C-alpha cells in the first residue's frame, strides 16, 4: 500500500516534469538530471525519503539581497550607522557585500547591496517589509544618541526596539534580545 502511494507520487512528479519540459520551462538536460535524481532518492528507500521530508537545517541567514537605485548610498548607510564592513575585493561599482556577525565562512551574514536591474521574474505575492538587526550590550540612551550622531532619526518603535528609515525609505529595525526574541511570547 505504501509502495503504491509512493509510485503514485512519483508518477505525478514526473507528469509535472514532462509538462514543464513540453512547455519549455525545463530543458532536456535539466529534465534528465531531475528524473535521475528523483529516481536515486526513490531507490534509496524510506531512509532517504524520511531524510528529505525532514527538511533542511537552517544555520542562519547567509545574505539579504538589497536592490536599490544606487548601492553606494545604501552601502554608506549600513557601514556608518550599523557598523557593517565592506568585504575586500567584492565592491565592483555595481554592488558590494557588507559583512556582519560571525566570520565569513563560519556563519557570518552579509547584505548584498546592488543597483536594481530589470528582471523578467514574475512579481511575487510576498515581500519583506522590514528586517531587524540585533545589537549587543544595548543601552537605550547610548543607542539613541549614536543614531542621532549619525544624522538619522528614529522613525518608530519602543525602548529596546527601534526603527530608522534608510536613504531609500526602507524600514530598518534594530533591537535588543529582550524586546525582539522569538520565544518572548
Amino acid at each position, binding site marked *: 500500500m505504501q509502495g503504491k502511494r509512493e509510485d503514485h507520487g512519483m508518477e505525478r512528479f514526473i507528469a509535472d516534469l514532462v509538462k514543464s519540459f513540453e512547455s519549455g520551462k525545463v530543458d532536456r538536460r535539466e529534465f534528465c538530471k531531475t528524473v535521475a535524481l528523483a529516481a536515486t532518492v526513490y531507490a534509496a528507500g524510506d531512509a532517504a525519503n524520511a531524510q528529505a521530508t525532514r527538511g533542511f*537545517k537552517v544555520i542562519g*541567514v547567509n545574505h539579504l539581497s538589497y536592490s536599490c537605485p544606487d548601492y553606494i548610498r545604501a552601502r554608506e548607510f549600513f557601514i556608518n550607522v550599523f557598523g557593517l564592513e565592506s568585504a575586500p575585493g567584492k565592491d565592483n561599482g555595481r554592488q558590494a557585500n557588507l559583512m556582519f556577525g560571525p566570520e565569513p565562512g563560519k556563519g557570518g551574514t552579509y547584505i548584498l547591496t546592488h543597483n536594481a536591474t530589470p528582471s523578467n521574474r514574475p512579481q511575487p505575492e510576498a515581500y519583506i517589509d522590514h528586517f531587524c538587526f*540585533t545589537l549587543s550590550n544595548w543601552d537605550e540612551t547610548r543607542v539613541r544618541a549614536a543614531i542621532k550622531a549619525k544624522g538619522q532619526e528614529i522613525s518608530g518603535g519602543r525602548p529596546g526596539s527601534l526603527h530608522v528609515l534608510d536613504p531609500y525609505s526602507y524600514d530598518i529595525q534594530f533591537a535588543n534580545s529582550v524586546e525582539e526574541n522569538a520565544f518572548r511570547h
Partner: protein
Amino acid sequence: MEGFVAQKLNEFETGKISRRRLIEQLTLAATTLYATGAGAQADTTLKAQLINHISYTCPEFKTAADWYSKVFNLDQVGQSKNDVVLPFGKKGEQPYNVTAKDVPLSHLIVRTPERGQGGPPRAPKPTAQAVIDYISYTVADFNRERARADLAALGVKNVRDGGPRSLRMDDVYGYEVEICGLESSALSDG
C-alpha cells in the same frame, strides 16, 4: 545635541523623567558626543551582531509558514490572528558561532497585513525605493545535487542553480529563496 537636550529638558519639565534621570542622560550624552579620544568615538558606533528577524508579508501567513516549516524544518511559535514566528532553532539554543548571550536566534515573522478592523489609524510609511529581492539561507551539510533531489522530493517548484555553490527556488508565494552552505560567504564567489 541641542535638540536632544531640549527634548530631555521637556521630559523633565513635564514630569516624565526625574531630575536624577535628566542629569544621568545629559551627562552620558555629553560625554559620548563631546569627549575626545578613541573610546568616546567608539560609543557612537553601533555594531549589528546578527539578523534578529525578517518580516515576511504575504496574503495568507499560515500557507507561507507551513511551506517554510516543511522545507526548513522550522517550528512555529506565538501564533496570533495575523502572524506566526519561525525561529531558526529551539528555545535555549545559541545562534551558530555566536557566543554573546544577548544575541538571540534569528527568526522569520510571517504575517498577513491587518485588514481594516477598527483601531487607531496608522501613519502611512513612505514608499520604499529599495527591496529585498531574495534571501539566502545557510543550511547544514549542504550538497547541491543532494539538495536538489531533496527539494524535488519535498515538492518545491522551480528549483534552479543560484551561484556556483547554491540553489534557488520559489516559495509558495513566488518569493525567491536561496540555500547554500557555510562555504558561501561575503568573500566567496557567488
